[in-house]
């Protein structure tokens, strides 16, 4: 049976949730400021070329990225300042259900890491195995990562779906779907 929680306790939990969010936003704001400063000091000077014969500063290729970078820094500062001045943000922040606790948190991060590896693997494997085979393996691996409660259905879809997509894109849309070194489909 579910126990009743007092409104006071709920309010405390909401405030605690807001404070966590505010701390998170402060770090987010600091990261954004750092990103903006990096744009202004490194990325724009080194990676945006501007010819010497530009008629006016506002027409230079560097002008727009520079304005955008200043806006990023300014918004980062406003974000940090607003979270430092006052704590709560908005009611809908309560919808964020937190990062989980203990094992759940570790498992979540582990699954995300596995997903990142899977994505890299798909990109690397596509030219070697072909998109169809790489997709089949990716689908199956995805099902393993999330411990699919329907392994047989997952396996069937893992085989059938890439073949159907290959048939459409290759034969209807005329896309040259990568074939790979080991499997050549008609």
């Amino acid at each position, binding site marked *: 049976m579910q126990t009743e929680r007092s409104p006071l306790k709920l309010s405390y939990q909401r405030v605690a949730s807001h404070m966590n969010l505010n701390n998170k936003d402060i770090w987010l704001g600091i990261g*954004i400021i750092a990103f903006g400063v990096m744009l202004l000091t490194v990325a724009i000077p080194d*990676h945006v070329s501007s010819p010497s014969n530009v008629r006016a500063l506002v027409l230079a290729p560097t002008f727009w990225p520079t304005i955008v970078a200043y806006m990023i820094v300014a918004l980062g500062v406003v974000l940090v300042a607003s979270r430092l001045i006052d704590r709560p*943000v908005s009611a809908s922040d309560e919808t964020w259900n937190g990062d989980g606790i203990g094992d759940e948190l570790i498992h979540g991060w582990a699954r995300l890491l596995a997903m990142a590896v899977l994505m890299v693997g798909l990109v690397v494997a596509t030219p070697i195995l072909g998109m169809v085979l790489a997709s089949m393996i990716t689908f199956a691996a995805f099902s393993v990562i999330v411990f699919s409660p329907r392994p047989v259905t997952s396996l069937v879809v893992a085989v059938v779906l890439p073949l159907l997509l290959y048939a459409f894109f290759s034969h209807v849309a005329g896309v040259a779907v990568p074939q790979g070194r080991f499997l050549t489909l008609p």
Partner: protein
Amino acid sequence: MNLFDNLAAAWPLVANFESFFALASGIVIGVVAGAIPGMSATMAVALTLPFTFALQPITGILLLLGVYKGGIFGGSIPAILIKTPGTPASSATILDGYPMAENGQAGKALGMALYASCTADVISNMSLILFAGWLASFALSFGPPEFFTLILFSLTIIAGVSGDSLIKGLLSAVCGLLLATVGLDLVYGTNRFTFNDPNLMGGLNFIAVLIGLFAIPEILSYVWHPGGGKGTVRALGEQHVTFAEYRKSFRSIIRGSFIGVILGSIPGIGAAPAAFLSYSEARRRSPNKENFGKGEIEGVAASEAGNNGVCGATLIPLLALGVPGDVITAIVIGAFMVHGLQPGPMMFVANANIVYALFLGLIISSVLLLIVGSVAIRLFRYIVDVPRSVLMPSVLILCVFGVYAVNNNVFDIIVMFGMGWLGYFMMRNNIPAAPFLIAFILGPLLEDNFRQAMLMSNGDPQILFRSWITWFFWAVTLITIGALIRTGLHQRSAASGLKFASKD
């Protein structure tokens, strides 16, 4: 040519099997996708986009519009059956739809959702036909300064209303503008953030960015917590809405439709606020207001009319001004661009037949939605039950094939994954993705119009205040920012009150 001449000239483009089939398929795809928790109308339109490359422009765009309309209606299905909105636009439908399902009237609620959606859809489409051409002819007098201020206003309002925080919305839009600068400079042709990679010289692929932002984060979110987000599916129960019930709710449906039309024609507001406003107006004016929230059929009608009233109206700024009204129309603008069409006032001059063919297609889609919806009501229960453990990897594979198909380039898949992780980071930090995408689309247009204005004036910024139109857009931009800051401060003081109350 007048409106009727244009419609008559466009009729042959729509009156063929391909167009009808595209619309019907789009509606079926949209309804199914909208009905599956974890999918959304946005994701469905984004995933369908690559399938339109091989089609004629009109057929492809009609397919996407079918998905859009079907998806918005489809979102009401899980809202009613499992208390989980299929799309954010259906959030208001839960309020009375789910209590009706609990009372054994799920079929009745779905029926009313369908009839209200179709009625609102017709009104919205008629508004589009009547106002888009007029607005486009007015916009023909716009020059670069006017377009610059218009886009600035659109971005401000989209950034402000998309999420919970104005700062985060603006931040999202500014990051979208930054990403739009990647590639060769529009005027001088020099490199900007290309890092000497030829793949980046043409800028980032729009479809890879949008699928990355809107589909991949949902997949990652599922991977983070595979067990969550599934409720109990209610039985359909009593299935028919009587004509008397429809007539009783008719006033709320019409009111909700017009609320949807008005809010939909303003860029950035979207379907969810329209649904809630329509719902609250229906409750305020209803003699049964105490029954709202407990299973009042008029509540379902009002919220569905509100969100579907937006569908046609969001195309008004898209077609007349070239400014997408929401994320879905931002994706639709991508379909136009893929087929070499640029929405905006000139399209009514250069491609009037396509524009009016779309109008006709939209009218037909309302009828098709009614037919498809009526037939499919009995099947909805099974659609909602699709296991996410099979759905999510399927979406991933669809994304991979779809994004690769744009340019036959694996680099686009890398961009999609990169944007997916960025989108997931934004999702976890409550940063809305919609302003990012719309700014990414409008960024080159904004910069181009700004630089053209500066070229016209030899760098004199006074040109940005040259006419009453620019003054109007500056004024509404400032008013919007002021209103959003005021709302934010109100929320903050309300939340502070909660904090002090909890300390007491």
